[in-house]
């Protein structure tokens, strides 16, 4: 038995050593396309440097569905199956910028989708927790993070409406699917001083992107940022909370 453990240990060590060497690497052409996109954002001067770096370091093409590589840097959401989409790169950068993620932050993402937003967050903080309601998508995203070496991203397939109390409270929460109200559970799991970014409105029409800050005294500050269109929250969120 001991021998078996030892062999397994050796094999795992070897895998751990080899993995970084075999991890996905973007081609020079991909890097150039990404750089061009990031340079465009940089020219507008909206985001902080760490967001540009995070976008530049994450191989977005790896998160795209098969045959959709040409859409990688188009500014439109692309369908990834199961009624979900991968948000365009600019908007992911924008959401990350709004969160103002710090390296020590614990971040919860609701709606992992392709896994791209979690990957961007991982570039800034290693404490990323993400929930996806479609189990197939959750499995695919997990596989991607592992093969890219982002193994500290913790994901699960579940209904994000309830948040993830086990790992809470969180410094930042980002919701990447449309909801018609802000779930109390997520507010409960947001630290005082924490920030949540969530699209709120009719899930089947347009929504308003909200930046919610939980003040230290328990009051809440919300900012209505812009009109957006996300795919609907498909779990318990579909239950009305007083529409």
């Amino acid at each position, binding site marked *: 038995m001991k021998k078996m453990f030892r062999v397994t240990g050796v094999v795992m060590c070897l895998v751990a050593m080899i993995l970084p060497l075999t991890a996905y690497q973007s081609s020079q052409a991909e890097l150039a396309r990404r750089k061009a996109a990031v340079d465009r954002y940089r020219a507008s001067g909206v985001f902080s440097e760490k967001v540009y770096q995070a976008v530049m370091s994450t191989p977005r093409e790896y998160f795209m569905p098969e045959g959709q590589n040409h859409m990688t840097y188009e500014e439109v959401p692309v369908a990834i199956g199961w009624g979900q989409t991968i948000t365009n790169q600019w908007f992911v950068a924008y959401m990350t910028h709004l969160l103002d993620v710090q390296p020590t932050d614990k971040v919860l993402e609701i709606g992992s989708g392709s896994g791209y937003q979690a990957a961007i967050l991982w570039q800034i903080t290693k404490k990323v927790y993400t929930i996806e309601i479609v189990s197939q998508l959750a499995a695919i995203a997990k596989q991607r993070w592992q093969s890219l070496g982002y193994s500290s991203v913790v994901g699960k397939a579940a209904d994000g409406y309830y948040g993830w109390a086990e790992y809470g409270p969180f410094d930042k929460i980002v919701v990447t699917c449309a909801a018609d109200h802000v779930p109390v559970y997520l*507010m409960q799991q947001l630290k005082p001083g924490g920030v949540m970014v969530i699209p709120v409105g009719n899930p089947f029409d347009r929504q308003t992107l909200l930046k919610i800050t939980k003040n230290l005294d328990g009051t809440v500050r919300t900012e209505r940022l812009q009109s957006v269109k996300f795919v609907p929250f498909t779990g318990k969120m579909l239950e009305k909370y007083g529409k």
Partner: protein
Amino acid sequence: MEKRGLISVFLVSMAVLGAQLGVIRYMSVASWSNFAGLIISIALLGFGLSGTILTVLRERIERRLQDWLFWSAAAFIIAAGYVLQFARLIPFIPQSLHQDGTQVLYLALYYFLFFVPFFFGALFINLSFLRMKTGINRMYLYNLMGSGIGALVLLVCTSVISPQYLMIPVLLLGSAVVINEAIGSARRMRLGAIVIAVAFLPVLLTGIGLFSPATSADAQQCADGPAQGQQTAVSEPNKGIWAGLFNLADINMSHYKDISYALKVPESRVIHEKASSLGYIQVIESSQFRFAPGLSLSYYDSIPPVQHGLFIDGFGASGIARYVDATNAGYIRYLPFSLSYSLKNRPSALVIGAGGGNPVLFALTLGASKVMAVEPYAPVVDLARETFAAWSKGIWDDPRVTTVISDGRTFCKRDDGKYDILSIPAMVSSGMSFSSGSGNGENYLFTKEAFDDYLSRLAPEGILDVSMRLDSPPRALLKLESLVFSWAKERFPADFAQRIVFIRGLDWGAFLVKNGVFATNEIALLKKKTRDLSADFSYYPGISASEVNQYNVIPEEVYYAFAQAFVAGTEQAFIGGYAFNIEPPTDNRPYFSHFLPLSTVPKLLGLSGGMKDVPFDEWGYLLSWATVLQGVVFGLLIICIPVFTSGRAFLRERGKLRVIVYFFALGMGFMLIEIAVIQKLNLFIANPLYSVALVIGVLLIFSGIGAGFASRYRGEEAKKGITVGVSGILAALALHAFVFAPLMQPLLALPELLRIMIVILFLAPLGFFMGFPFPLGLQVLSDKREKLMPWGLAINGSVSVFASVLTSILSMHFGFAFVFFLAALFYVAAWVTFPARIRFSS
């Protein structure tokens, strides 16, 4: 022969009106009522087009008139028997109209589909006029009596029969006509039997349970409610084309309606459904349906309790309140409803729009010493108080609660109590509080006169509390601000600015209007409460610019700016310069939900951005214009077809222009009066169903009697007849303007039955004289120029395509007084152009 014709026309008139109601009700539940209006208007084109066909083919038709009558009746019932099932097969999504070309095709399919039954029904009626050339007045009498009685009977049907089954009474009436027209011919009898069998096939197949939805038979029980065992018809998709065609039970509701959205939640289901005068009521049970409108994000405790969802025509989710004791009611103190209660200790409360009981529960929890719960719709209260008694126990039975079924305005007039807090929680009771109308319709709860009524019920220092959802771009809440401030400024010019507080949360806004001025300590209490809710002041007496937009930051604080404009006296410039219509509504123009200015109409034609720039909620107004535009285009076509197809003989006929103006003016005049009276009576009768039934019923029945009476004016006497008729109409309108209209407000205090009697007294002479001109004109044409008679029918019919909708638009922009004045002008125009004045060539 004559008797048979009269019976048939009576029954068909009833059936056609029933089919209209059936289609409108079905479309309102399954889709959007705005589109139902658009489609029905094109369906009414059937009246115009059938008149035109008669003009063109008159000689050929007259040779085989009985066959034409039989087959048009037969086609009518077959079309009526299948129209709703075919409609279900069309996957029309209104919201995608501006971005998906195939939706235009689907809309066109709807047009065609709904056109067919009305075309054949109208063809039958118009053929009947041809059959009785000498008895046009009597024919018209039966036509109007049929429509009038049909309106009364079928409106009652809509409140007891589910929308998917509303065509069954229409089929019964149609079958009687087919049999009536087949009498005397064995061949037609046999064919008639086959036609009736085909029309009733879906009824039969559904009746024997062939297509029962799987969920229906299970008799699902509600845990705390009664054993309803109702069908969950809405959630069942079509199972193939055959089931789609022959299954009546399935409504196939649009996936984009509130109820469809709620039903997508796992474990949710319809546990109760019922047709009512209010609309089609459905109750949804879901393990997670919670109702806490405007709940503050600062609330971190246990989530609100599960409730039942209440939907009317698939819209407006609100809750059937579940009783909660104080330990579970903590969330109520974090609702905007609690704002006014922070200023009063054990207040007496009046709630206008009690709906499913939530506002009552809130008031009780917040310490009200007594609650007067006013709700206009008995079915909603019955549902909450009796059907789900176990669920809501403790709310309605609380000794502090008195429940009154009444419209808010009527209640304020009749009651003599004074209340510390008067709440109109539009966001809590959802569609219910908009008791006298919804959508683009009349809403008499939000007019300046309504606020006078509310003030009369406030105790000294009492507070009127009106809350509403915040909308984006700002429209409704801004219009409410416009109403509150302009009303207060007119009523209390000296200190209006000291009487109003306006608080804005994440997705709501609440106005507190005091019967007195706010004291400093009250403002301090409200500041604390507002902070607890993480809400902001948009206005309070003495507010400074640095205090706004703190917790719920919006890019531009228009609400504060608007309030300041009122204080500075520059509100007219603000209202005039704003992109939406935010003028304060009055009883003369009670259109709170009408926000689009006339300048947006070109967007319909794809100009200046097109429909995609207009929020979907506002499409109703533009669709009204679309209805008018399509009506004008098709109407012109109908009028022109005989000119181009009937050759020189028709072109040589003299007086065509007079015929056009005469029948056009009659169509417009009649519709303007009919629709505007319905809209006005929505306040006086305070029940849309009753006011529609009363107006259509009384007006049409008395028009029929008038038509019968006018038959004495024959030949040269006809000119005298039109003079008597038009003079009578003008006198009745003057009576309305100078006697009835000013008395309407004070008379609201009378019991409902007396108010109905007053309406009948007012409508009867009006209807009687309105019955004169149409048959007089037709008779003159029939006597002197037969060729032009069906053309008159066509012109009059084509007006109905758009006149009702045009009336609504005119009321919105110019008010009812203008509409009645315009109607009077049309009748004067008809008097001037009366066909008997035409010098016909020999």
